[in-house]
């Protein structure tokens, strides 16, 4: 693998990583602050993608559609939170898993009823459908560069919000000691709803910008949710910094596993054996990474500071 190709694969890993981060951010916050196991988080990603695909057609503007889709998903997310999740905060994790899994089934079926069973294929906006030559020999799809940019900006905004605003201070305080925060008079219900809405906005943004390169279909959030859970375990539950670094790590591990393992295996086994062993090991590489983290550092790489 030469330098240019390695750089291109790093970009591919980054692009996958920032997408994962946008989904994981909300999940780790609700996990960390509300102590809620929310399997329905993937639904918000799916709704963001569906809304964006429909709104792009309706408004003719992709950027407008992304913003509107995120806003619409936040509204749906808040309704879900008020109607179902709010009742679950005090319950045990098994109840939360069952109830939020029910929400997943409900919404997967609902989008099938509304948008039909067929997958929706949307196109990359024409202005971004070309490639950019970053350095000589490295042509990279413009749209994917935009995804990386949007993801990094969103991550920076979230870090600023969490670390330097009053809301962020309350969120961090809530993650460390929830009971104390409510004891000093903070409306923890409102804080929960705000955090949930924030997470929904990020997940919807991820879904909306993923739509043109992936397939918009019922159940598309399920696979992403599993990856997001892996990221959270690796990064440390409730930690934004952990989620960010773990997302990029998982993105890079997956990308390099898919492309490098087979040639690596060819060094010491036959071509046919490498052809079947390479993809098999590559598909479980991130789960191996998670197992290693669980074994050596069960609290995750960057757990939030708690007392």
């Amino acid at each position, binding site marked *: 693998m030469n330098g*240019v190709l390695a750089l291109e694969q790093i970009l591919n890993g980054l692009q996958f990583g920032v997408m994962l981060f946008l989904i994981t951010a909300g999940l780790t916050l609700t996990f960390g602050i509300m102590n809620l196991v929310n399997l329905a988080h993937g639904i918000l990603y799916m709704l963001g993608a569906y809304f964006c695909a429909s709104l792009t057609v309706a408004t003719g503007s992709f950027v407008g559609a992304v913003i509107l889709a995120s806003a619409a998903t936040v509204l749906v997310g808040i309704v879900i939170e008020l109607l179902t999740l709010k009742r679950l905060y005090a319950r045990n994790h098994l109840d939360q898993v069952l109830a939020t899994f029910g929400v997943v089934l409900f919404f997967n079926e609902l989008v099938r009823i509304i948008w039909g069973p067929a997958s929706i294929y949307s196109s990359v906006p024409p202005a971004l459908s070309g490639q950019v030559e970053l350095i000589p020999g490295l042509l990279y799809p413009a749209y*994917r560069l935009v995804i990386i940019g949007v993801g990094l900006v969103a991550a920076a905004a979230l870090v600023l919000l969490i670390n330097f605003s009053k809301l962020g201070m309350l969120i961090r305080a809530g993650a460390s000691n929830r009971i104390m925060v409510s004891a000093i008079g903070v409306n923890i219900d409102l804080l929960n709803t705000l955090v949930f809405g924030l997470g929904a906005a990020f997940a919807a943004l991820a879904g909306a910008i993923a739509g043109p390169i992936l397939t918009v279909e019922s159940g598309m959030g399920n696979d992403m949710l599993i990856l997001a859970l892996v990221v959270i375990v690796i990064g440390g539950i409730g930690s934004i910094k952990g989620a960010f670094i773990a997302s990029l790590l998982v993105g890079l591990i997956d990308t390099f596993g898919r492309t490098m393992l087979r040639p690596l295996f060819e060094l010491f086994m036959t071509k046919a054996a490498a052809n079947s062993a390479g993809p098999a090991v590559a598909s479980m590489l991130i789960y191996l990474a998670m197992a290693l983290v669980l074994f050596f550092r069960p609290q995750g790489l960057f757990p939030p500071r708690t007392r």
Partner: protein
Amino acid sequence: MIKTRVLFAMLAVAVASPAFAADKVKIGFITTMSGPAGVVGKHHKDAADLALEELGGKIGGLPAEIIYADDQLKPDVGRQLADSMIKRDKVNFMTGLTYSNIMVAAYPPIVASKTPFIGLAGPSEIAGSMCSPYYYSVAWQNDQPAEAMGKYLADAGLDEAYLLAPNYTAGKDNLNGFKRNFKGKIAAEIYTNLNQLDYQAELSQVRAANPKAVFAFYPGGLGVQFVKQWAQAGLQGKIPLYTVFAQNAITLPAIGESAEGNYETGIYSPNIKNPTNAAFVAAYKKKYGYEPSEYAAISYDAIKLMDAVTKMVKGKVEDTQAVLAAIPKADVMSVRGRKLAFTANHMPLQDFYLFKIAKGADGQMTPGVEKVVMSDTTDAYAGECKMK
């Protein structure tokens, strides 16, 4: 006493009925109609409905009914539906079952019941060791489109190809089918995760390897993703892309201009020129507003074959042996441009075409016919078939 006599008389009629012409022909049609793969079932159903409509709602002159059932792309559901069609509906013909995994699950009870089965798939098992006198395929043996592409590129003198497919049985079968005829250098043989929707990392590798040609098997929705991302990565027109099952009338509306200039091999395109196909395409587009795919074509041919066979046995569809004897002799012009004919293991004898994806008269992408690249071949599994 009278009651008993009547009962005996009725029983006698019931037992004797195979000797008479049936009063109604029932066709069991199991296919995938829901989920992302449901579009294949839609093409099947639309074409079968059109065929029956053209026959005036009759098969071999008898009133006919097609009983559709959705297997939901689940082998267990497919098998249950097959059981109920045979035992409850007592169908005279079975058809459908496009997806090999459903076919292999539902096939044993159907052929065990001795129901004539004109199927829409040719998995390697059924072409080989599981072959049965009760089964005929009007589709293709699964490996053959890839074999045709391998042969075309070998004949064209190409000495290097880069192969990609999803990591499951059909993916390996297709790449092996390609390699059966292509003797040049294999630059790489890449298997991607079956659930993967983003191929950017693999496409980066392809660009760096810069092979003389890429051959890919990505069926249905995977093909839409693969070909769109191929264009987004800037590879369209830079490296020639040859596919099977990826760029057809099912996927091209979703792929759009990203497919222009790419190649595909297969048995059917709406652009094949012959009178039967011209009439079929015109009627189909008029009725449904979209172009028929190979899935529509084989379903249409299957109904027309059942009609011809029923005529040949003079409506006595219960006489299974006569029906089976009639199938290979039936004189049915396929929309593919040739009469339906079968190999010793009951797979179709036919032409495989090279298609180049281009803009059609209506501005939509369509598989343009380049040439016939492989004809009348027997598949690789025929030797394992002991027909009995």
